[in-house]
């Protein structure tokens, strides 16, 4: 995951890029076999462990998902955390500190 959280005025802008194939389960490989569905289903975000934006995703989110979201109430140095879970049981969490934008 690549993450950045910038405080601009009283709003913090958080940008996230996740490396993930986001396979729909409808695509075929070079030999004509279906590539099994493999996609992120849940994404949770927190500010200093308090839940912020929570997402449920389907196969319609693009490969290597990109997300920008915004929040009020964060200060420089606060911790923003993002966790994702996919349909095959894989998961990842990453933290980033809020910086002055």
């Amino acid at each position: 995951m690549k993450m950045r959280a910038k405080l601009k005025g009283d709003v913090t802008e958080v940008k996230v890029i996740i490396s993930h194939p986001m396979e729909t389960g409808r695509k075929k490989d070079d030999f004509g076999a279906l590539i099994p569905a493999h996609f992120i289903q849940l994404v949770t975000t927190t500010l200093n462990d308090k839940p912020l934006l929570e997402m449920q995703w389907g196969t319609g989110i693009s490969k290597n998902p990109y997300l920008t979201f915004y929040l009020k109430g964060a200060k420089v140095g606060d911790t923003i955390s993002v966790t994702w879970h996919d349909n095959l049981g894989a998961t990842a969490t990453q933290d980033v500190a809020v910086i002055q934008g």
Partner: protein
Amino acid sequence: MQRRNFLGLIIAITATALLLPLRAVAAVWNKAAFESSKLDEAEKGLAINGETTSKDIEIIAPDRAENGAIVQLEITSRIPNTEAIAVFVEKNPTALIGNFMFSNGALPQIVTRIKMAETSDIKIIVKAGDRYFTASKNVVVLENGCG
């Protein structure tokens, strides 16, 4: 034999440990809504009914997308007490793209990238309390991005 049993036990424990979070995720994820091929069924899966058109939902997306695999989409809701934003693409094989739920100071504004199979309306539904509001934007898609 004992060693084989021990290995079996380790495998069983590992499998259980891996399965538990997967089950928890499966319990939360709205399978019925996400696997619906029809827009109205997907809406029903999210318990959406009687949405009214609103000018307070802003959708920024291209009028024409060369490649449907990556269509950048920005949504802002100016509806007070927005709790969730659901994104649908009417003509995709499965209509529901994602549901974004806000709390504790998260602002009802997101930017993300979605897949579009063909020219279609992007339909946004905002949940505010018990009420639902909607806005749509048509995007012309030149190349199928759903594979």
